[in-house]
């Protein structure tokens, strides 16, 4: 059996994703693990959350329901040793069902939805669990190369407990035909790409309301000594 390869991270430079060419460091990173002893990040309390931060189908309503397929995204945040991480702040953003972002510089000629912003945030509970409702985002074109399209995805910003647990990533949907054409997805080592794809969970769906996806997030743990 092949040993599991634990290096799951993309390189800084991935020339097929053209913007990395001028924006990635060229010198080796400096190892500082032995020099930085305590890297604890700030903790956020429940009081930072507003009532509908965990429901993107409700938090920007103006005159009706947002258009598109309502979904629920649920999962856990764990460290590499499988310990659940409570009180982790997840900030999320995404395109609407038509593949259009609210962002002003967005030039994709698809409609905005007056009832959908696409931004939200949640905190994990004691067992490291989180969940939110949203609309399934659409694919959208981008300028990397001729006829480039991003697979459907939701952006996640994750504030773990320590500096090396500060992660920004993207969640994808199973079976997307655009995976093999997307250099951002392809930048991840082949064996680790599945870690970015949510699992469809029929057993978590809400009948006549929303389909459900599971997306678990594993953050780097401080490498433990064997004595611990």
């Amino acid at each position, binding site marked *: 059996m092949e040993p599991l390869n*634990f290096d*799951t991270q*993309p390189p*800084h430079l*991935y020339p097929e*994703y*053209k*913007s*990395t*060419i*001028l*924006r*990635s*460091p*060229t010198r080796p*990173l*400096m*190892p*500082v693990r032995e*020099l*930085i002893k305590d*890297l604890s990040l*700030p*903790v*956020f309390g429940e*009081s930072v959350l*507003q009532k509908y931060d965990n429901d993107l189908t409700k938090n*920007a309503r103006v005159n009706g329901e947002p258009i598109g397929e309502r979904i629920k995204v649920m999962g856990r945040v*764990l*460290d*590499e040793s*499988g310990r659940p991480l409570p009180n982790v702040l997840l*900030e*999320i*953003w995404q395109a609407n069902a038509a593949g259009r972002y*609210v962002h*002003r*510089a*967005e030039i994709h000629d698809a409609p905005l939805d007056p009832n959908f*912003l*696409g*931004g939200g*945030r949640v905190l994990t509970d004691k067992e490291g669990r989180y969940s939110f409702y949203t609309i399934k985002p659409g694919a959208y074109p981008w300028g990397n190369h001729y006829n480039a399209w991003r697979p459907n995805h939701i*952006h996640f*910003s994750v504030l773990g407990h320590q*500096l090396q647990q*500060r*992660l*920004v*990533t*993207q969640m994808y949907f199973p079976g997307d035909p655009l995976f093999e054409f997307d250099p*951002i997805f392809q*930048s*991840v080592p082949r064996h*680790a790409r599945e*870690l*970015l794809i949510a699992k469809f969970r029929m057993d978590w769906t809400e009948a006549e309301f929303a389909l459900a996806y599971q997306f678990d*997030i*594993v*953050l780097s743990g401080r490498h433990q000594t064997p004595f611990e």
Partner: protein
Amino acid sequence: MERLRQTPSQTVGPFFAYSLTAAQYGYPYDSIVHHALLGPATPGEHILLTGRVLDGQGTPVPDAVVELWQADAQGHYRTAPLSPKDDDGSEFTGFGRVGTGTQAGARFQFETIKPGAPAAGQAPHINVTLFMRGSLRALHTRLYFSDETAANAHDELLNAVPPERRETLLAQAVAGLSRPSYHFDIRLQGEGETVFFDL
């Protein structure tokens, strides 16, 4: 012991602003992390911190997210939970975030205090994390202060940086402004490339 595989990092992309930095960019959503880390009555020396993120051609990057995490004037990192309400204006969060898309010249600007030294063998410093379109992983570095020569000379981490690259971690004091100010350019590539860390 069970070992799970880390979730791979992906780029923050160009469209983060209405979620991560909504108030700064004027989007109709609240922000819980800001360019100001302090209140009017926060103890310590209030400073203005500006800078740029420069790509391999020296062009300022207009769509980067810069995060700071630092100790207070006593050298203590905050451990109490962050909350949106600041009762007496003295609360210091120690954690800040800014996008480079709203100021001329793609500058970032923070209002904060000059941190105290967190421990023996450490000079005052600020942890800096960068995200941007074209960056597949977070970039981590540290900001030290150009006018802390004596303390910098005894900083364990700074001393581990090759001498010819130490200057890339120094924020330069800017004279002649209404309050103490520092400027910190982060160079992603080439001449004067900033030292980035493998945590």
